[in-house]
């Protein structure tokens, strides 16, 4: 099946710093989503981004589908950005089956 690799596995930042989270995937995809999982387990949608670039406030994401990777940028990080960030992809023809990476644990210190 499709492989999804996220890096780095863990990231510690000082408040106000910028960061880049990476997601590599092994096959062509129909769908790519970035999620933030809060301490209570809720998966919060950040971006639906099978290709191209999107921005939402301090967050932006870029997916280069031809090279099979996506990047999530967090600028001016805040302590509330802490948590686990997941990249999830849907293989072409996979009928909404998302395959998740192992996640990136981000800790933002005040």
């Amino acid at each position, binding site marked *: 099946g499709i492989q999804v690799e996220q890096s780095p596995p863990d990231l510690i930042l000082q408040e106000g710093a910028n960061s880049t989270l990476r997601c590599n995937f092994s096959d062509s995809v129909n769908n790519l989503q970035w999620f933030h999982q809060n301490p209570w*387990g809720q998966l919060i949608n950040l971006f639906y981004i099978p290709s191209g670039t999107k921005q939402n406030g301090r967050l932006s994401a870029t997916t280069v589908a031809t090279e099979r990777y996506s990047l999530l940028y967090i600028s001016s990080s805040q302590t509330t950005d802490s948590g686990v960030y997941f990249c*999830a992809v849907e293989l072409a023809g996979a*009928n*909404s089956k998302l395959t*998740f*990476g*192992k*996640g990136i644990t981000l800790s933002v210190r005040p």
Partner: protein
Amino acid sequence: DAGVTQSPTHLIKTRGQHVTLRCSPISGHKSVSWYQQVLGQGPQFIFQYYEKEERGRGNFPDRFSARQFPNYSSELNVNALLLGDSALYLCASSFRQETQYFGPGTRLLVL
């Protein structure tokens, strides 16, 4: 509009019992998917239903089953519970095959 809702929020069962988890999708969404997330891992796909029909099944044993009702809500059933079934069970809904929105999950502990 209400998001995806799941019940119960927490559940404790013993080995060998069965459990039923429930999910209500966002209004207008006809697709519901179920995922299992064990501690320290990303969610794993269990089932997807669209218009009351099973459209996808992950690599889970037959002890896991699901169904979708005419109002598009869904149930996940797990029989003969094992300790390894302890996990966060997540439900997601989507309109056609686009952005999936997740509910808050049900935390199942099997003793």
